[in-house]
């Protein structure tokens, strides 16, 4: 083989190797997606299934109470504008993160609630992971339990879904791992006694046994990044909302389980 062909072959092989290294993790085929619920023990499944034993339902009850509390300079409650949550909030959580025209980017459910609090109720926003925020998001998301996660196909969302996908597939942290390497490529395998889930956000806010409390998707994402020995962003960072959006898009069609129980 002459040297020019050899050079061309070498270049081809190198670029192939480079593209393999940079290639995103293979997406899970839509019909192979499964919720981490399936991997739980019989007892933990029972905890989620039974509304009288699911600890997340305590927060739902708090959220139901908060829904009718008049707050802020407006003296209005959520109910004053939104009426009965069972009707007005049906399907709402399945559509979030959703595009917010005013800010020109997607917002998640927590941000949407805070926008309403500040702009409409003229009240202080709730902090992430505060008792009130968890209660309200749990109550609102419960109204979508059993509903399929929306397609998130609003064209304005596409660039943000792409950003979330890029973050999902980017290697990071001291372990130099990407989310996709575990959750797309190695789901179902075991890591230190636990089954690697596909990581679909079907049940947020979720009662995680590790936390012994309810927690948001952002809290879970921060834990993942800490676990990967990467620097977590602050709560509310746009990078997280983009990731949440990508994860919800990736889970489109899967049923909402809020309030889910997870180990």
């Amino acid at each position, binding site marked *: 083989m002459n040297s020019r062909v050899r050079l061309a072959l070498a270049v081809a092989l190198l670029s192939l190797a480079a593209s393999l290294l940079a290639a995103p993790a293979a997406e899970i085929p839509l019909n192979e997606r499964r919720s981490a619920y399936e991997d739980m*023990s019989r007892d*933990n499944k029972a905890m989620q299934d039974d509304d009288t034993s699911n600890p997340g339902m305590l927060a739902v009850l708090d959220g139901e109470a908060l829904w009718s509390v008049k707050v802020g300079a407006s003296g209005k409650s959520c109910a004053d504008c939104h009426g009965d949550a069972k009707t007005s909030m049906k399907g709402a959580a399945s559509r979030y993160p959703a595009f917010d025209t005013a800010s020109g980017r997607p917002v998640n459910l927590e941000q949407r609630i805070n926008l309403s609090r500040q702009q409409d109720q003229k009240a202080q926003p709730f902090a992430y992971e505060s008792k009130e925020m968890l209660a309200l998001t749990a109550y609102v998301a419960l109204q979508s339990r059993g509903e399929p996660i929306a397609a998130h196909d609003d064209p304005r969302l596409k660039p943000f879904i792409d950003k979330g996908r890029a973050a999902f597939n980017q290697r990071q942290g001291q372990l130099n791992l990407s989310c996709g390497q575990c959750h797309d490529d190695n789901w179902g395998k075991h890591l230190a006694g636990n089954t690697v889930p596909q990581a679909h956000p079907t049940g947020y806010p979720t009662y995680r046994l590790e936390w012994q409390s309810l927690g948001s998707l952002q809290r879970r994402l921060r834990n993942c990044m800490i*676990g990967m020995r990467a620097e977590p962003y602050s709560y509310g960072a746009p990078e997280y909302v983009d990731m949440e959006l990508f994860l919800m898009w990736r889970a489109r069609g899967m049923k909402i389980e809020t309030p889910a129980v997870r180990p």
Partner: protein
Amino acid sequence: MKQAIRQVVGEAHVKPGKIKLDLPPLVENGNSVTMGVMVDSPMTAKDYVKAIHVFTEKNPQPNIISVQLGPRAGKAEIQTRVRLADTQSVVAICELSDGSFWSHTVDVIITLGACLEELP
């Protein structure tokens, strides 16, 4: 744990049997483990379970729960969720109306979460 048991049982002889402790052999997260305890007893005024006590071998504190029952219970069966610090034995002891003590011991394996988080 032995001392905690003696505080409840005194010098009485504890026999294995009658009481059943239901715990999963392999636990996903030791922070919340579903635990059932039941005693085979007719729960009549003459023959009933007075108390159920559950102990742990390796938790920092040996007691888990102590329950007082009587014939009004109808069934000597409880369920709760407990914390188990490490792979260990859990012992359930019941005291019957005739003063006898019975026990059941279960070994539980606790797996730790893979991605350990810091406190927020």
